[in-house]
């Protein structure tokens, strides 16, 4: 049920993986491994780790010249690659920082070594940023120990060494700020590959490969995980008693529950603080508790809670099975079970929920086990972590509350959807700028399942190439009404040619359902470009029923794969739309 660590792959296992045949018709994934040393086993491990994660792709890794990291990056044939993996070591910054060159370690040499390292860092940084404008880049800063060239004893950090590390740190900050560069986390590498077991002096001197096998394996594993980032989970459902707080609310009372050092219940305070952090980053958080709802309401009035009830929605407290609560929470959120984590201190409750929802990740809250608690937080950060937080992340919970209000209002007695929408003061903003760094649009295409034209995903390189095509367009839609802003909730990618549009990708967040935004998007395209017809690369998937229903209301079933909707068909079936429209950018700007 819980897996917090990964075992390093052995070389013999890596060779077995890369010798497996590729699936038929596998699309290529071409990565360039840029390093200044002989790539040798790192290339083997990286190929194997990527093949494990990209099982349906033909993984190909090419490499450059020995001893020329910056040149390898500068000469990179960008059009022939899908990603760059750049591995920087000290000797790439100045050969005297390695052990294969005998350029001198005298005291008088040190200022020049630092100066040349700083210049080389600037060159490498510039080359990487240039590539990142076209390709995703994954980069590691030096991982090997510095040789003993400084004059202080090893236990004392020398000023020169600190200056080198400062320069590398500053460069890492610049690189990681680029939206398409991901830096390998040195802290995670430290955990799985101890610093004292990384350098293989013999191998470096005799074959030019400086890594011990375990270190090469660990580096490859982390890089592959960066390249093939798992889709972050969307929501966390937590128990209350002995989980969000210490104590049993029904027995200890509102004042008896605790989460503080003086009551030896500080872990629960840390957990609350952590959940508040997740919620602030857009993770949905809810409660499933066997409790008296009135008492729970009172408990959430306590002002010293580190996560307020406004961050937890819904709070589902009753005496029935927890799986009932989970079912209600999933329905309110409108997310699939595999996007959710459930945390409870009771193995029995976890088992009950797991039996009802095998796809949910169920994690035990280890209330008196401090090391396991630390592992729990690490695991949660890994499954919910994302590269960047968007404006939509901060709106998510509010928009779900608003959607709940909308559903309630539109289903109410005597109320029709038309009159409800007319009163909603809805505003739609259409953005027609082709911004390759629009992470939200890229993310929506790659995680939306329900309102998804065909289920197709895009790699970062394919996304950039699509937008580079002068004939393509990217249309994004933002929405807000009097119940709150939903942010950017729809993305269309396609081409317009001779009075017709061809849509290759169309996704809309499930939070935006029942507002006729999909109708509004098509009407805007028909009107703005005077289109007579829109063609859709439609494909039914196991999960895109909302798209199927939308089309079935306009054209007769069965829906063909190359679906066409004429202007007349659309406007005949289009229901009344009440949105105000703003266009936010020039066409194909």
């Amino acid at each position, binding site marked *: 049920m819980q897996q917090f660590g990964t075992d390093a792959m*052995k*070389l*013999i296992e890596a060779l077995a993986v890369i010798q497996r045949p590729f699936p038929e018709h596998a699309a290529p994934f071409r990565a360039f491994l840029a390093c200044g040393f002989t790539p*040798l086993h790192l290339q083997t491990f990286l190929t194997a780790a990527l093949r494990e994660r990209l099982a349906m792709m033909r993984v190909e890794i090419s490499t450059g010249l020995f001893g020329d990291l910056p040149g390898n990056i500068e000469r990179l044939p960008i059009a022939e690659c899908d990603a760059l993996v750049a591995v920087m070591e000290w000797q790439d910054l100045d050969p005297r920082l390695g052990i294969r060159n005998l350029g001198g370690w005298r005291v008088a040499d040190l200022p020049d070594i630092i100066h040349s390292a700083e210049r080389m860092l600037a060159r490498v940084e510039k080359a990487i940023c240039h590539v990142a404008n076209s390709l995703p880049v994954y980069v590691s800063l030096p991982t090997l120990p510095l040789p003993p060239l400084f004059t202080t004893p090893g236990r004392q950090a020398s000023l020169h060494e600190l200056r080198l590390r400062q320069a590398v740190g500053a460069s890492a900050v610049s690189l990681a700020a680029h939206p398409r560069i991901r830096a390998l986390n040195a802290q995670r590498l430290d955990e799985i590959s101890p610093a004292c077991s990384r350098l293989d002096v*013999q191998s470096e001197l*005799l*074959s030019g490969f400086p890594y011990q*096998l375990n270190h090469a394996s660990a580096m490859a594993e982390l890089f592959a995980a960066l390249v093939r980032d798992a889709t972050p989970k969307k929501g966390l459902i937590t128990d209350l008693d002995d989980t969000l707080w210490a104590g049993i609310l029904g027995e200890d009372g509102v004042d008896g529950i605790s989460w503080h050092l003086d009551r030896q219940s500080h872990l629960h305070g840390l957990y609350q603080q952590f959940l508040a952090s997740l919620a602030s980053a857009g993770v949905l958080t809810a409660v499933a508790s066997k409790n008296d709802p009135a008492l729970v309401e009172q408990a959430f009035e306590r002002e010293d809670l580190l996560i307020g009830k406004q961050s937890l929605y819904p709070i589902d407290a009753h005496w029935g099975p927890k799986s009932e609560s989970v079912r209600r929470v999933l329905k309110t959120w409108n997310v699939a079970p595999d996007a959710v984590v459930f945390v409870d201190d009771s193995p029995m409750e976890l088992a009950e929920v797991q039996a009802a929802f095998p796809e949910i990740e169920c994690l035990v809250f280890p209330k008196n086990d401090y090391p396991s608690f630390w592992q729990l937080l690490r695991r949660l950060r890994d499954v919910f972590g994302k590269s960047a937080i968007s404006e939509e992340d901060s709106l998510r919970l509010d928009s779900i509350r608003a959607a709940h209000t909308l559903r309630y209002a539109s289903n109410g007695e005597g109320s029709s959807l038309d009159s409800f929408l007319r009163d909603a003061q809805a505003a739609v903003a259409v953005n027609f700028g082709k911004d390759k760094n629009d992470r939200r649009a890229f993310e929506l295409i790659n995680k939306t399942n329900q309102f998804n034209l065909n289920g197709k995903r895009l790699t970062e390189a394919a996304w950039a190439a699509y937008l580079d095509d002068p004939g393509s367009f990217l249309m994004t839609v933002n929405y807000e009404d009097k119940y709150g802003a939903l942010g950017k909730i729809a993305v269309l990618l396609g081409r317009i040619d001779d009075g017709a549009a061809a849509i290759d990708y169309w996704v809309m967040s499930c939070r935006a359902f029942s507002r006729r935004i999909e109708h509004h998007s098509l009407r805007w395209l028909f009107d703005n470009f005077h289109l007579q017809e829109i063609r859709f690369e439609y494909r039914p998937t196991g999960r895109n029923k909302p798209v199927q229903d939308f089309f079935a209301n306009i054209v007769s079933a069965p829906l063909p794969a190359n679906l066409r909707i004429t202007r007349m068909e659309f406007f005949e079936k289009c229901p009344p739309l009440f949105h105000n429209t703003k266009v936010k950018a020039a066409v194909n700007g």
Partner: protein
Amino acid sequence: MDNFEERLVHCFSSVFPGLSEGQIRDASVDSLPEWNSLAAVTLVALIQEEFGVQVSLADLPNLVSFSAVQNYVRHNHVAS
């Protein structure tokens, strides 16, 4: 074939995946064009990983056949 030999053959077949067990036993630098320096370094790394033997790269020039490797590992391997 004992467990030791089985593991050694497995190491060789990982580096030279096209060879049968019999061909591996007869393999040598002279008879096998694929046995280049890259293959030799990979083979040594595999043997170190599999048997815990520290192979000096300086000994590489002597490890020119399956039987030479077998003798080397037998002499330096402390059974685990």
